[in-house]
């Protein structure tokens, strides 16, 4: 009864609560809350060209980093590539997850073994998965190129799937979809198993075919999961890094209006490149702020237009 509790009991309860919370809140404050603001400070500065002392040497440059960002063709291209990544991974992720869930939604012996097999890649490291796919996608000698050759398709032989600008992004996305599908699969499976069986029975009596039952019962009733999949697909596009690092380093180059731009040059990778390879902390911080703004816009739009409870 907080209303009737004495002031002393109340403050003792507060003291206990915050003592238990202290370790968590201190780490949260220093490493998760403060950085959001500190990042803005860094974004308004730059590391002088000749300095390795990034703290004493930070130079105030006002909005210069943001101004540069808005005229940086490489940055806008990266936003475009991020959207392209999202446009590929969202529908394919949903399709693969839902297909696996429908396959598993049957009373069969050994079905849990399949469930584990589909889920396992989700817990493994994206970097390793990317490295292995690089081997599979290799030109000339890679296993996938050889499989295509065996049916007479040699278009990929010379440069491999990651070396051709048209196939690089879909190949990166495919590796990620197959790795992550187990997660969506579990979500869809539990949603499907929550659907009242009598709905299907009634539809069957009315003469609805399998496809009609799927379209008019299953699909609408798993919509909350689909909504969630759109959100995590968007977030994974905005955060895409390890897969690009492992497989393509942002390449291969495509010619866009006379400028060479990377076919898998997503914003997450550009942030890393600006920070780690060029050591432009201020510029990378400014870019990550735009990334945050995009994330917020996307989540507002999702809530507004795609939310299951509109």
């Amino acid at each position, binding site marked *: 009864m907080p209303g009737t509790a004495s002031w002393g009991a*109340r403050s003792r*309860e507060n003291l*206990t609560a915050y003592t*238990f919370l202290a*370790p*968590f809140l201190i*780490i*949260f404050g220093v*490493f998760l*809350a*403060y*950085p*959001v603001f500190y*990042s803005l400070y*860094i974004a308004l500065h730059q590391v002088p060209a000749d300095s390795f002392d*990034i*703290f004493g040497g930070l130079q105030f440059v006002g909005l210069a980093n943001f101004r540069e960002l808005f005229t940086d063709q490489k940055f806008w291209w990266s936003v475009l590539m991020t959207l392209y990544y999202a446009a590929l991974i969202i529908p394919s992720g949903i399709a693969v997850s839902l297909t*696996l869930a429908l396959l598993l939604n049957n009373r*069969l012996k050994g079905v849990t073994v*399949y469930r584990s*097999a*589909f*889920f*396992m*890649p*989700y*817990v*493994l*490291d994206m*970097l*390793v*998965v990317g*490295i*292995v*796919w690089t*081997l*599979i996608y290799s030109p000339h000698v890679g*296993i996938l190129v*050889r499989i295509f050759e065996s049916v007479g398709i040699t278009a990929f032989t010379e440069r491999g799937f990651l070396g051709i600008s048209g196939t690089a992004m879909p190949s990166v996305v495919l*590796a990620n979809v*197959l790795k992550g*599908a187990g997660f969506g699969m*579990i*979500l869809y499976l539990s949603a499907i198993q929550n659907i009242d069986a009598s709905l299907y029975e009634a539809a069957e009596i009315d003469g609805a075919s399998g496809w009609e039952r799927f379209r008019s019962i299953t699909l609408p009733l798993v919509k909350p999961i689909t909504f969630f999949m759109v959100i995590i697909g968007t*977030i994974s596009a*905005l*955060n895409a890094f*390890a897969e690009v*690092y*492992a497989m393509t380093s942002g390449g291969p180059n495509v010619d866009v209006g006379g400028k060479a731009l990377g076919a898998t040059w997503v914003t*997450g990778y550009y942030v*890393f490149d600006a*920070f*780690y390879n060029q050591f432009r*902390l201020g510029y990378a*911080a400014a870019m*990550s*702020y735009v990334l*945050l703004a995009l*994330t917020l816009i996307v989540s507002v739009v999702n809530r507004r237009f795609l939310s299951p409870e509109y």
Partner: protein
Amino acid sequence: MEPRAAARIRRTLLYVGLTAAAIVVLFPFFWMVVTAFKQPGQAFSPEIFPSSPTLQNFRRVLTDYGFARYFVNSVIVATTAALFATLFASLAGYVFAKKRFTGRDKLFALLLASLMIPGMMYVVPQFAIINRLGWMNTYQAMIVPHLANVFGLFLMRQYMMTIPSELLEAAKIDGAGEWQVFRTIMVPLSVPIIATLFLLTFQFHWNNFLWQLIVTNLERLYTVPVGLAMFKSAHEELYTLKMAGSCISVLPIALIFFFAQRYFIEGMTMGALKG
């Protein structure tokens, strides 16, 4: 007779579908293992099973290329981090589940809102903070920044809310202090979720490649994924060794998953299904 035959055909088709899907999903890992056992120089031989399998690749990456050391580093980082992240999340989860205190709901909303911030956002400022603390090339740099696990806190709170408060009150009437209540009642009753969170945070830190890459540039501090990335850029052509390194990198998590998959699957999907 007719419907039974139809059922059998349907069942067979389902098994074919499931098996085909499993082959596609697991093929990269199969190919990784097979290649790791091939003779050097035979990395691209198309044979499904190597004709003269060898352990030489594993031996060489572990000894000549320092993966034994990287492995120990990964174990140290992931274990320590998982222990503390789980402890902090349990303490905080208990308070959010069972205590009424000033600012509770606002604080909880703030913590949950932080989950929306893209991870890339943190790379630059966290790196700068680590530098300012003088923590570059230390274990604590790899561990400490990720010890406040908001998702873990959420899991803990959800679970601990289901433990009846009467148990806690009874213990208090018997004279138990706050810490004692937590340790002798909450912890034993929360073992499944504590185990789950330990495994999930262990997995997170084992795979926390980008951050570990950023805060270390001394070879003796490399974790397995960082060592693998460095090996990849230095020896692009040593494919069989690269695959052996990859095997070593995923083996612990694959093994843990094999024995404790229920915890993984439930823990990872719980947030999504309840939220």
